[in-house]
């Protein structure tokens, strides 16, 4: 029986590490790449349109003669930054509201659950699009829209786990011993949900990056000339025959980043 439990755990560990390394590699490219090979992601040189790799542009040039290496590095900073900001906001909101709903119960709980269920009923991308239409500034709109979509899962997980924990004899004992809500949260609730939150955050980041890329791909996300993963793919799609490497670069980078995040999250049931 112990063997049956131990073996998947070991592979699970390896999988998580592979994912983390993959994410680290992509981020290292985004942050350190432009330092190693200085260049401007916006500078055009139409003579070099779709030209192959060279010293100043290790991944070649796009249809407008811009260095794909630098555009990709820029894009790989933008999407994860927005995604991370959205996940942090959503995680914090979900954590606070979930704990509140579980602790207070009654009307607070009912109102918050209804709100979360109502948001779940809307397709996530549609919600992001609506918010993008309302909020000025695309990056800000993405942050707001994605936060609005992502908090629901954090909320539901926190609420469910916190409700069970709060009903346990351990919490009752702590309260009888004179401890307040802060102590109960720190010693009982947080250790129960921390790992779960981390897993959800990794999945959430992947979802957010994918959403930004998907909307960019259909021309309703980031606006040109901002380098963004989805936008780069759709811009380079017509030239796939002439410059396959140019199209493959953003595809491979996106795939590596999403795969890394998903692997690092491990299984959904930690």
């Amino acid at each position, binding site marked *: 029986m112990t063997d049956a439990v131990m073996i998947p755990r070991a592979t699970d560990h390896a999988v998580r590490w592979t994912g983390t390394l993959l994410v680290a590699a992509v981020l290292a490219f985004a942050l350190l790449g432009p330092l190693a090979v200085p260049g401007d992601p916006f500078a055009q040189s139409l003579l070099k349109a779709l030209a192959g790799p060279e010293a100043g542009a290790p991944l070649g040039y796009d249809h407008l003669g811009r260095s794909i290496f630098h555009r990709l590095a820029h894009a790989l900073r933008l999407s994860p930054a927005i995604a991370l900001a959205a996940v942090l906001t959503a995680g914090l909101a979900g954590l606070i509201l979930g704990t509140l709903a579980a602790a207070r119960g009654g009307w607070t709980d009912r109102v918050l659950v209804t709100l979360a269920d109502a948001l779940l009923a809307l397709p996530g991308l549609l919600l992001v699009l609506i918010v993008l239409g309302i909020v000025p500034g695309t990056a800000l709109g993405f942050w707001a829209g994605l936060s609005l979509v992502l908090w629901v899962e954090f909320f539901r997980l926190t609420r469910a786990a916190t409700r069970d924990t709060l009903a*346990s*004899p*351990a919490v009752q004992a702590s309260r*009888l*011993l*004179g401890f307040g809500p802060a102590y109960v949260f720190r*010693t009982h609730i947080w250790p129960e949900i921390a790992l779960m939150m981390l897993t959800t955050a990794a999945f959430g980041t992947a979802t957010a990056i994918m959403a930004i890329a998907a909307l960019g791909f259909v021309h309703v996300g980031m606006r040109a000339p901002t380098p963004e993963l989805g936008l780069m793919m759709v811009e380079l799609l017509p030239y796939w025959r002439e410059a396959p490497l140019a199209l493959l670069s953003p595809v491979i980078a996106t795939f590596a980043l999403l795969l890394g995040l998903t692997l690092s999250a491990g299984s959904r049931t930690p």
Partner: protein
Amino acid sequence: MTLLKAEDITVADGATRILHPVSLYLDSGEPLVILGETGSGKSLLAQALMGTLPGELSARGRVAIGDRLLDAARPEGFRMLWGRDIAVLPQEPWLSLDPLMRADRQVSEAHRLVRGPGAAEARDRTADDFRRLDLTGAGQRYPHELSGGMAQRVAIAAARAGGARIVIADEPTKGLDAARRDGVADLLLAELSRGGGLLVITHDLALARRIGGRLIVLRDGQVVETGPTATVMAAPVQPYTRDLIAADPDNWPARKPVTGGATVLTATGLAAERGGARLFTGLSFDLGEGRIMGVTGPSGCGKSTLGDVMLGLVPAAAGRVEPAPALPRTAFQKLYQDPVAAFPRHRALGRTLADVARRHGQGQDRIGALLPRLGLAPVLLSRRPAAVSGGELQRLALLRLLLVRPKFIFADEPTSRLDPITQKQVIALLCDTSETEGCAVMLVSHDPALVSRTADHVLSLGPAPVDADVTPRDIAAALQ
């Protein structure tokens, strides 16, 4: 006639031996009881005899069943005996019945599949079984419509449908109160009288005494003492057996009753409900410093709810609970049935205790001073709750309460999951605490003997609640 003979049975987990050589035999008509605490290896012994050990454990030794000789190291050889020669009575049998199948079909299915008679004959045999076990009319019911005792009889009928002559019952009385426990013992003995052998594995001295026959006492995987049950019970030879028997609440010396003491808590006309049903009404009693009130009653009668009402965790449906003035809220504490569930499970015990000491302005040295008083080793403090034995953890829970200087402790079946010797220690410490700290204790237990030896006054809950301040002995008699 010898039905089963086992020689030099050992069980090992890799290189560590967890059961040292045990030899035993089972005669028809004479029950054999294997008695031991949790972790003594008694269940492993039974599993080795049946060939059902978990995969990572390996057994050695020879088992002769009827005219077959089997090697304990090759469990697959036992398979063909299951149901035909050996029947196993599962722990908590009502959980082993199929909830979606009527009672008679569960038994006739076993008849049909194990021995293979036709459907009509299987039905006839089932009807015979039901008549014999006094289950007439219960055949069309689903398990949830059966009482606990009936479910147990159905499970026995199903287990024996294959005509097995050897019945192995592993902890058949787990989680039962005294009356139900005797019912199970009588049922097993009745089955034995039909011919065949009975092997009972238990930690319950009362069950062992009632089953009789021969006794093997196990401890840490080793045989401590063997002999006729009545002889061993009356005159144990080994010190461990003596301790074990002395730890039976029936054999405890009665505690010196405490009278007087300032009142800590007064209940007047108390009533409580659960799910709209009245649990009890009109309870009035005082709890005095240093006095212990025993609370008994069948399961589901509201013992735990009463405690929660006293502690202010659940509102009373009627009546009042009045604590003595000038006592802080934290003077009212609870000792839980499952100590593992009462500690934050991700925190080392020492940190939890240090938090409590700090919250109540006590120095860390007080924890160090209390540890030896409760017979606890300091090394336990670095562990998490799940890595400490139940008895130690319950004592740590008591230590945690002492840091608060409680005036009232509601002890909700604090020893029902502990072994007899540990139970005796914990209850003795609780009595001691009550005396030295001047603390009122409300001790819930389903064991009338334990309550009658410990409590100064007894409250018996049930369909017709008996008022408090009846002497313990009367209550014990009334319960039996």
